[in-house]
């Protein structure tokens, strides 16, 4: 029994750390413990004396199985059964102690009654949270830290951990910029900390800074996630903490019988929004309606021709809208198996997982295998050691051709020819000739396919010219058909990731611990891209590509810390000092091949060696750091913490490689004061913190040096223009942040709320300053220029609405705002304006003192030029006039840049999340809502499929060609110019997830060897409300990959964003 007790205590310790588990997981664990104890339970019933019975209840009036009931001063003790019932022999006057992990123990003097029911209160206040290089009692926290449990993450069926965080935390914006399977969402903690690069947070897994992102972690392996938002919490990470820090703690083994768990689910997914684009037949019908209604004017056209064309649209056999071809139902499966157990001296946790996800666009897929092993060893009374391994192999199949371009294909034909479509093409051609129009075989018709419509074969990919051009048919585009583009291209990415970390921990004296972590990781990424001859409408061999790039990033990290932890009466002291060295080494080779032969088998051996350009990367970066932190708490009332870190980074200029980042914070637990009498308000804590952080995540290895780029030339290797200039003074930007916070709890903390307000000043901001090409041959160079201020308010509330024996209902909500303002740009008032988008389409991005980051500017439109003024509105499917009336803001009679106004901003006014979970008997239901309000995107896509041809208005519309419409005297310009026509609201409200589960934990399950079984159905994005003016598939989509994208200063363009996906899932969790 003693042996058992001891084990139980160890479990208790671990459980204390994470007592906010979901109900059902909690139950499962209890069941496991109880099962484990059943073997020994006979001992407990062999007692003498009077028998007391009763039940032990916990939170939500649920019964607690496995609670310990002990008679103090004796060796007598029992555990409660499945339903929380206990039976114990006692004498009047005995002191009975009821305890359970995570609950405050209660001691009661026995007064001779027959039954005694007990309600235990959860130890929420003593929750321990993980902080940088240590842990902290939650009540002692003075910073702004958000926490999540692993079960919150696995409750969402997503391919990546970060996707599952959406809406769950205040001050943390998770945005589906690119929902392609396996692609990273944008994670932004509070405000952007940089104008130059994306502000992705630092990821620390079990104290180790991994070189990959959150995707390296299997969500089922996560015990908890902590997000350090304010400077004081993150300052211990110094130069890398400015974007916030995500601390991931993975599951560890625990002593006792090995527990096994198997989780699996299958999902089906489709894009959320449907039917944006009209197919040829739909366009034909629509055109006739518009003409009949008098909205379109075709009187200047030959009626026979109009009729020919409209019936051509209407009757085209197999015509399909490109969206109906490109998108499909994707099926995903996920399997995850883990086990944990061990003895007092050796504990282990291991898992293997597999997931296979099909994207909603054809060819998109993501497949991944992963494995983890965490070993913790107690080598002696004072020496602990551990080893953990995490690894995965994944493959992402990506859409190999620009989605925007595929969707702009005309829906006037099938994707592949059929007998009917070939006959139809020939019929159209002869009708055209009959009308005196040129035959389809005239004019340009390239590619590798047939050059005459008379040579078409069933199964040939359809090119637009097979259907004629705008003057003689309905085809129109000279491009290759969509099937040619996609079938002859391939793009994938394979990732091999392994991380091995070992630690040693030695307790020097009581409270003084020395710990060292040494580890390394390897992140190998292989990118493949192939574009064949047929994908180019003109079959140009130099437009073919065969690219293979291999990039190996390795890192070695060593962290040594000395921790001191002491409670002396009312004084609690906690200090840590440490040293850390991080070396990253990136090697890579790339093969970029062109003139790929047109053949069935594609490999590099077929290429002329001269057509393969070899690229090489060999870069090292090193960081050395010293840091320390001291925390002091007096009587759990007054809290004080200070930290400092000194970082050196090889990427900075030789004069300025080191930076020092101090921080301090203070807190006051007002409710612990003797004067605090309120019973209703159970918690009032005031918090204040201020600190300095740095950021350098977007900096390249040699940004401070002027290196010549190797290029291929006809004379051999050339040393091309450098991307940078020598800048020995290039250094840290510093981010000074102040946080004010208050936490309040009501009704024994059944309801908790917290508010944080922060102000952040960034100085010496690293900016890619745009320069004239005449100076250094580049568009921009990086330098420490400018200041920025951001501020924000975050509000979180959580509570238990209903707490009945069979029914409970929890709800939590959060809302966050953030504003940024550029406060200085050194000696200029504005960074150079940048027109960014696609081929001249897109707004002008402005970044000026007093403005936000990346404001979108352009002309204000006041309505579309009506279709009635189009020379030929039937000309292309889905077209519009492509022109809008605009305002001459300064009234100078000229429409130019002087008339630009702010037309949009990609920063939301606020974003929010609401989560709720209910349990009724064995059923559980949870929902996660999320939304964002006030952001805008500049949507490029409609500018292509609606209106890429401006200048197709009737001559009479503007007879004197002065840019003013003759009929109403208004100025007009093409939408593709810089106008607000492309601006659309990116606000949305999403039901990110809804899950309904049923848990079977009956006796017969135990007999079958299972401890529990849960089945569930779930849906992601069951409801996704988009703004009425938003016309594409994903309001969260923002382009960050095309050339010209410069980071936050040009953030807000949408260009062929992968759609928002709705999926339905069926899943099973088994524990045994």
């Amino acid at each position: 029994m003693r042996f058992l007790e001891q084990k139980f205590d160890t479990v208790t310790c671990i459980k204390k750390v994470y007592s906010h588990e979901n109900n059902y997981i909690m139950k499962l664990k209890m069941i496991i413990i109880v099962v484990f104890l059943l073997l020994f339970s006979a001992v407990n019933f062999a007692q003498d004396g009077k028998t007391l019975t009763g039940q032990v209840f916990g939170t939500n009036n649920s019964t607690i199985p496995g609670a310990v009931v002990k008679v103090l001063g004796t060796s007598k003790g029992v555990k409660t059964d499945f339903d929380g019932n206990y039976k114990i022999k006692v004498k009047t006057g005995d002191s009975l102690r009821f305890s359970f992990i995570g609950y405050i123990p209660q001691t009661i003097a026995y007064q001779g009654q027959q039954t005694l029911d007990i309600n235990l209160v959860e130890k929420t206040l003593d929750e321990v949270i993980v902080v940088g290089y240590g842990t902290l009692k939650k009540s002692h926290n003075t910073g702004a830290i958000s926490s999540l449990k692993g079960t919150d993450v696995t409750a969402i069926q997503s391919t990546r951990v970060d996707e599952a965080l959406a809406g769950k935390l205040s001050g943390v914006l998770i945005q589906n910029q690119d929902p392609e399977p396996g692609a990273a969402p944008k994670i932004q903690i509070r405000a952007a900390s940089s104008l130059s690069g994306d502000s992705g947070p630092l990821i620390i897994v079990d104290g180790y800074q991994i070189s990959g992102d959150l995707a390296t972690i299997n969500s089922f392996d996560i015990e908890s996630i902590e997000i350090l938002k304010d400077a004081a919490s993150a300052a211990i990470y110094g130069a890398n903490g400015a974007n916030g820090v995500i601390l991931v703690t993975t599951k560890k083994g625990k002593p006792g019988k090995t527990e096994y768990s198997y989780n699996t689910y299958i999902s089906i997914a489709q894009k959320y929004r449907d039917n944006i684009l009209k197919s040829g037949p739909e366009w034909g019908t629509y055109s006739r309606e518009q003409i009949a209604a008098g909205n379109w004017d075709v009187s200047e056209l030959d009626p026979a021709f109009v009729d020919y064309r409209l019936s051509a649209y209407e009757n085209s056999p197999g015509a399909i809208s490109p969206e109906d071809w490109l998108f499909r139902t994707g099926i995903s499966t996920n399997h995850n198996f883990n086990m944990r157990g061990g003895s007092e001296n050796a504990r282990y946790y291991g898992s293997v997982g597999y997931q296979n996800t099909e994207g909603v666009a054809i060819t998109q897929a993501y497949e991944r295998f992963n494995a983890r092993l965490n070993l913790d060893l107690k080598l002696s009374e004072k020496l602990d050691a551990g080893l953990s391994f995490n690894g995965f192999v994944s493959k992402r199949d990506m859409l190999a051709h620009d989605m925007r371009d595929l969707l702009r294909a005309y829906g006037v034909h099938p994707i592949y020819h059929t007998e009917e479509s070939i006959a139809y093409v020939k019929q159209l051609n002869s009708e055209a000739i009959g009308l005196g129009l040129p035959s389809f075989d005239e004019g340009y018709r390239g590619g590798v396919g047939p050059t005459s419509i008379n040579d078409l074969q069933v199964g040939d990919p359809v090119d637009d010219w097979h259907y004629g051009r705008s003057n003689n048919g309905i085809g129109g585009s000279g491009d290759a058909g969509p099937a040619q583009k996609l079938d002859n291209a391939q793009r994938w990415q394979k990732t091999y990731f392994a991380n091995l970390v070992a630690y040693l921990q030695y307790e020097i004296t009581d409270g003084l611990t020395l710990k060292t972590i040494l580890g390394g990781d390897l992140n190998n990424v292989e990118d493949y891209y192939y574009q064949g001859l047929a994908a180019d409408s003109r079959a140009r061999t130099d437009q073919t590509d065969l690219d293979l790039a291999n990039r190996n990033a390795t890192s070695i990290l060593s962290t040594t810390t000395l921790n001191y932890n002491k409670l002396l009466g009312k004084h609690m002291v906690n200090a840590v000092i440490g040293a850390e060295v991080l070396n990253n080494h990136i090697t890579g080779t790339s093969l970029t091949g062109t003139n790929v032969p047109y053949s069935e088998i594609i490999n590099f051996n077929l290429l002329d060696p001269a057509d393969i350009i070899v690229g090489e990367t060999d870069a090292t970066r090193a960081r050395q750091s010293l840091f320390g932190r001291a925390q002091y708490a007096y009587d759990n009332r007054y809290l004080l913490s200070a930290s400092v870190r000194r970082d050196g980074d090889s990427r900075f200029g030789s004069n300025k490689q080191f930076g020092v980042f101090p921080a301090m914070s203070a807190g006051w637990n007002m409710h612990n004061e003797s004067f605090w009498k309120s019973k209703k308000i159970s918690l009032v804590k005031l918090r204040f913190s201020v600190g300095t952080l740095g950021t350098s995540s977007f900096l390249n290895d040699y940004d401070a040096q002027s290196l010549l780029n190797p290029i291929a030339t006809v004379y051999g290797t050339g040393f091309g223009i450098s991307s940078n200039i020598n800048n020995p003074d290039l250094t840290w930007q510093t981010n000074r942040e102040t946080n004010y916070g208050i936490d309040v709890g009501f009704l024994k903390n059944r309801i908790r709320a917290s508010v944080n307000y922060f102000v952040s000043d960034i100085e010496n901001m690293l900016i890619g300053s745009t320069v004239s090409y005449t100076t250094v041959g580049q568009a921009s160079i990086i330098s420490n220029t400018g200041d920025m201020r951001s501020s924000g308010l975050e509000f979180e509330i959580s509570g238990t609405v209903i707490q009945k024996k069979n029914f409970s209902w929890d709800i939590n909500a959060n809302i966050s705002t953030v504003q940024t303002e550029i406060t200085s740009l050194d000696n200029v008032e504005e960074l150079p304006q940048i027109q960014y988008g696609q081929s001249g389409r897109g707004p002008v991005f402005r970044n000026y003192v007093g403005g936000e980051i990346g404001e979108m500017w352009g002309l204000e439109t006041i309505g579309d030029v009506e279709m009635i003024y189009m020379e030929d509105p039937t000309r292309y499917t889905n077209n519009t006039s492509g022109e809008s009336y605009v305002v001459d803001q300064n009234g100078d009679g000229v429409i130019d840049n002087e008339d630009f106004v702010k037309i949009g901003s990609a920063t939301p006014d606020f974003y929010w999340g609401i989560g709720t979970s209910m349990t009724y008997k064995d059923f559980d239901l949870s929902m996660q809502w999320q939304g964002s309000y006030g952001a805008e995107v500049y949507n490029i896509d409609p500018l292509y499929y609606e209106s890429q041809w401006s200048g197709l208005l009737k001559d009479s519309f503007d007879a004197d060609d002065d840019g003013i419409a003759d009929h109403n005297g208004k100025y007009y310009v093409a939408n593709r110019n810089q106008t607000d026509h492309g601006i659309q609201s990116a606000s949305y409200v999403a039901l990110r997830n809804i899950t309904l589960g049923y848990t079977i934990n009956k006796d017969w399950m135990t007999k079958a060897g299972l401890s529990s079984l849960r089945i569930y159905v779930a849906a992601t994005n069951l409801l996704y409300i988009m703004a009425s003016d938003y016309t594409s598939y994903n309001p969260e989509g923002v382009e960050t990959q095309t050339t010209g994208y410069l980071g936050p200063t040009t953030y807000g363009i949408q260009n062929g964003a992968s759609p928002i996906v709705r999926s339905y899932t069926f899943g099973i969790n088994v524990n045994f």
Partner: protein
Amino acid sequence: MKKVILLFGICLSIVACEKLEQVPKNIANSNSLTDFGGVLNAAYYYQLGSVTPLAIMGDFRADNALMIEEPYTSFDRFNNDLLDMEEQFFSPFYIAMYRSILSANTVIENTDDMSIVGEAKFLRALSYFKLVKVFGDVTINLTSSDINLNLTRQSASSVYNDVIIPDLEDAISFLDNSGISNGRASQLAAQSLLGKVHMQNRNFSRAETYLGDAISAASGAGISLQENFSDIFGSFNDLNSEVIFATQLSRSVPDEYGFTEFTGWYIGNDSKSFEPLDLDLVAAFDAAGDVVRKDLTVNESSKAGIKYISEDPDQDWIEIRLADIILLYAEALNENGTSATTVLPLLDDIRIRAGLAILDPAVLNTQELVRKAIADERRLELAFEGHRWFDLVRTQTVDAEMGESINEIYHLFPIPSTEVLASDGVITQNPGY
């Protein structure tokens, strides 16, 4: 305890000894480089970025070729619509030229090897010459990188007098003709280019000197007219005896901005202009009775320019060939008042090769008639080689030849607006755009 400390010590020391100084060994740094041949290669390479834009400006802006699809037809209109073409043509052209200049500057700043400096100076002069012809006044940079550069556009004449002419004079004295067979810059190329520069400036006496020097030095350098007109073009004929300087293209060397090759535009392989031939050119061939060159230059039925064989990405872009220099020399002599009896025989070889009768000085007996004859000859000889528009502007015959009154501000092309923005307006836009 000792063992434990030792263990910790080892762990810490394994990684603590790395230096923070990171100087990559595998990447060239202009501060430590000793051989600047690679940088010179880059200066050659960046010329690639000028080829397609010059082809478009030279022929499509003029009366040799037409665009079909919006907004490309802005090349055929003389208003500010041309701004739409900035991203595809003017910006890449501008960037490529300054990159070539900066690479050449790095070479000139850092090496004492005069033959390399000579080539760099030739390329720098060539780049500035192209810039001035396209944009007029431009910013001058003679350093390898200068973040505090005076960005103000300098007048075209000071670009000529302070940069192009002195650079070419240096190139003439530093270079010999040994590189000509490899397609590298040579003394002959520098002489020819300097002659062209003076023609552009209408300094006909200096032009006569340099063009005359070039023609007399040609045969010594192995340069002579091809016997057949058809043997000048296409990758099989790259670096043939008539080519004084060409920007060499290769399918293995990607275009500086990955854009369509110039030949595709001429042939009509792009839907932007799938029938690019302007029938005005056909009429010009017909009027001259020029069958040989017409058949080798245009295809009337497909309405295409076929001088360069269908999209062969290896075909070089001929920058200077002997026939061009001979025609310019004749033009210079005529402008300088030399009699038709001396001037016209210079054209004989070119005309005979084209199957045409030689010109009769008795008929073409005035300076004006000779001027017109030479201009016509240039058009037919050099069609679809990117010369026509620039010749019209140079000889001040735009309106007469184009048959419309064109505001002179549209003789120049728009400065990339990104440059105006980047310089905060110090770099000004050309009037009219």
